């Protein structure tokens, strides 16, 4: 019981994840700034921002639903932290696993997007409503390619459990190279999930102020920010576990170090993407996801099927 609590709250749960999340945000912001020939924030800035938000008073609009308005940010944070417990980070085994946990992780990772929708919808502000609708519209666009892309390596490993999957790829150390196209697709879908440029129209500042978060302030905005930070790390960890499962049979601390390098690599790619592109309109985003991203993901799936049947 005590060890479970320790796992959930300290390591590898909330505390550790928050540390990783704020560090990831710092790296993202610093790198973004350096790409743009700026100095960038100091290392403690993300934590300072969170502390500031938690210290501030919050305003809830009169027309908003007070219960939903307060609850959804916490749900977002809880869902992302829970998903992390099923992702292996220092070996081939995650802390908790069962058959089909991959589907649960993906499900848990869609929850934050739904909380953005609910939070925006129940704020009753026009900007928030438009942002909320865009969030959900975008969800339908990137979720299918993401699922298809993750499905391909799972199919190759013939299992729905992430831990068993990593084990399979440890036994067959070079097979992950078959899934590189899927990795690209999942990376782009992750940009959509994290609502970053070029897919940040749900919170496009110059159009709808802050989208779903327009009415949020103080503590509740802090929860959301926290959840988004954590979501970035969890998303990157999922991609690292599914698409980059190499070197997992080494000495566990070394595997852990390798894991950190992997998510750093993924996060840097995400930052680079948002540095060099303009924001797409929501219709263009959906067009892109359905016309290009989903077929490419499908191609990966069929490719894996053929390899599995004919070669392996």
């Amino acid at each position, binding site marked *: 019981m005590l060890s479970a609590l320790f796992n959930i709250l300290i390591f590898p749960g909330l505390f550790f994840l928050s540390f990783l999340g704020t560090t990831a945000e710092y790296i993202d912001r610093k*790198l973004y*700034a*350096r*790409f*743009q*020939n*700026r*100095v*960038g924030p100091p290392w403690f800035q993300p934590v300072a921002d969170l502390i500031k938000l938690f210290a501030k008073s919050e305003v809830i609009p009169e027309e908003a639903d007070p219960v939903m308005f307060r609850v959804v940010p916490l749900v977002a944070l809880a869902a992302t932290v829970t998903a992390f417990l099923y992702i292996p980070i220092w070996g081939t085994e995650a802390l908790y696993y069962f058959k089909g946990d991959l589907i649960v992780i993906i499900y848990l990772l869609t929850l934050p997007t739904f909380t953005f929708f609910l939070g925006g919808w129940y704020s009753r502000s026009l900007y928030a409503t438009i942002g909320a609708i865009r969030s959900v519209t975008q969800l339908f666009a990137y979720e299918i390619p993401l699922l298809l892309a993750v499905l391909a390596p799972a199919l190759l490993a013939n299992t729905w459990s992430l831990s068993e999957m990593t084990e399979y790829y440890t036994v067959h150390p070079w097979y992950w190279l078959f899934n590189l196209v899927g990795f690209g697709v999942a990376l782009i879908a992750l940009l959509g999930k994290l609502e970053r440029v070029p897919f940040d129209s749900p919170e496009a500042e110059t159009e709808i102020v802050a989208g779903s978060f327009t009415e949020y302030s103080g503590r509740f905005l802090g929860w959301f920010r926290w959840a988004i930070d954590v979501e970035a790390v969890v998303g990157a960890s999922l991609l690292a576990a599914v698409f980059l499962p190499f070197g997992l049979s080494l000495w566990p601390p070394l595997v852990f170090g390798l894991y950190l390098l992997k998510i750093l690599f993924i996060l840097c790619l995400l930052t*680079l*993407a948002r*540095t*060099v*592109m303009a924001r797409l309109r929501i219709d263009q985003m959906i067009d892109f996801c359905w016309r290009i991203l989903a077929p490419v993901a499908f191609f990966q799936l069929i490719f894996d099927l053929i390899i599995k049947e004919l070669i392996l």
Partner: protein
Amino acid sequence: MAKKFFIRPGAMIALVLKTLFQKPATVDYPNKPLPMPEHFRGKLDFMPEKCIGCLLCMKDCPTDAIEIKKLGDKKFEMDIDLGKCIYCGQCVDSCLKKALAITPNFELAQFSHDKLRVVFNAAGSPDGTDQKA
């Protein structure tokens, strides 16, 4: 055009990766001083000994920021409201005897409006409180 173009996403990648290793373009102001060019139009300077009291500067000032007071025979002091001054330098152009000059001093912010009133008295040195700036 001679150069060939091909449309692609992320056309800027090469440049941003190069920029990563460049020195930031931003200046760490105010921790490091930011000098202004020599002829920058900043705070006014007044030389009472040259003033003949023609009041042309007062007349031409677009914002009525200047007030020249007569203290005695051929003795004048200037009272300037830096909150009103728009630093156009017209008074310097208007002055027949070059009793006015501009300095590149631009760091004139104050917490209180009273401190923006600067009096250049006949003794030659302004007794204004903004000298710390």
